[in-house]
């Protein structure tokens, strides 16, 4: 029996191969942890939306520089904008909760979707941090950034990957 010569190192392509896994695999801690972290991310979003609603007038007048005091119509308009922002935010957060549930149940596309958004968010923060010299501290964005990175670490781990990509046995 002739055997081909092996290279003296393993191919990095092994990193992209799914590990062998049984259909009866139990849900790994990494998957549970990832789903819980996505829920934490949603809670952080709820807090952010609430604080935005409470400080709305200040945000509009100071940060955006739009005077509200003189005109009732502008005032009503700003409130309408706030309602739209809150509704859109709530929809986004609701979708995230559904994604967390799907990840918990072992959905692969939900896992990939969340990882793509986490990657975009981390990249955005990194460009901000290294390019524009924005300071990242606990008081600004460290918590959301840390949550993003932890979500990505948990969901990209070998166990979480194996669980989401396990061969399914159709019992129904």
């Amino acid at each position: 029996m002739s055997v081909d010569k092996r290279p003296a190192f393993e191919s990095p392509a092994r990193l992209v191969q799914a590990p062998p896994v049984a259909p009866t695999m139990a849900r790994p801690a990494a998957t549970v942890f990832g789903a819980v972290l996505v829920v934490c991310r949603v809670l952080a979003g709820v807090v952010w939306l609430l604080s935005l609603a409470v400080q709305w007038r200040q945000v509009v007048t100071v940060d955006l520089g739009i005077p509200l005091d003189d005109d009732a119509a502008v005032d009503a308009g700003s409130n309408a904008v706030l309602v739209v922002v809150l509704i859109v935010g709530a929809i986004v957060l609701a979708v995230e909760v559904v994604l967390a549930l799907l990840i918990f149940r072992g959905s692969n596309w939900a896992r990939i979707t969340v990882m793509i958004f986490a990657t975009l968010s981390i990249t955005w923060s990194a460009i901000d941090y290294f390019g524009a010299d924005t300071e990242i501290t606990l008081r600004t964005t460290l918590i959301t950034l840390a949550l993003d990175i932890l979500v990505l670490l948990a969901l990209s781990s070998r166990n979480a990957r194996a669980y989401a990509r396990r061969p399914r046995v159709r019992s129904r």
Partner: protein
Amino acid sequence: MSEVVAGASGATTEPVPRRRFSVNAALDGFFFVFAGVASVWLAWLVLTESFSFGWFGILFFLLFWLVLAYLVLPRLHRILTTIYVPDYFIGRARTSDGLLGDPVNLAFDGDEASLHAALGAAGWTRADDVDLASSWRIVTSTVTRRSYDEAPVSPLFLFGRQQDFAYQQEVEGNPARRHHVRFWRTPDDWMLPGGRRVEWLAAGTFDRAVGFSLFTLQVTHKIDADIDIERDHIVTTVIAANPAARVEVLADFSTGYHSRNGGGDTIRTDGDLPVVDVSAVPVAAIEAADAAGAADVAAPAPSVPGGAER
């Protein structure tokens, strides 16, 4: 070596044939590496943040260690060892991070029931699997200093698989010190380098203390450097308790090899590989061992100089 290579790759074949490459898999590989790089950045941010909080920063420093030891270093090791550690049998188990772990220093012949019977009769306790309940019990037994003689052992990998089961003996009710041995069933038709067929491979080491891993900085068990003492202790206890068991030694199987295990502990061995044949051990011995188990708690210390198989 051709059998070894073929055997090792045969062990990882999947039941469902799959394409060699897919977008899905490429994305996974990208996220795996990207998350590793991002975690390095996170560790750096947490470290720099720890200086801006005064004494409260000590908590942040603890957090930095947690992130580094349990997230960053394992991920980096996994990426690097995938590339540089050979994945066929080299006489070493691998840790879950891909690092070289405990050396394979024992082999067994016989079916699984006989193996359980022989080890049970020899005063060994089967280790629980790692799950939430057993992890919690480790914490409580450590805090309350109660003995937990079925404490689980960490997973090590051979043929790309976690150990099938593990056995241990507690020493003086101290969870930091214990004898333990992990077992892997070899793939069908797989042979040791040199052509000997064995059904089980095992790695036995003695945990002497709790400390920090050299490679990942995690809290882990430190093992005794002289792994031959533990190997001979396992063989001696099994042979002494089972008259039907036989032992054959493959002398100088991995001669004079000195190295480190997955936690960075030094290991020394003379390289002999005892092959214990337990296929003739009566399976009914399991019940007898359970009855005698309570009286047999005080396990003998690993003080067997030389060992019985020489």
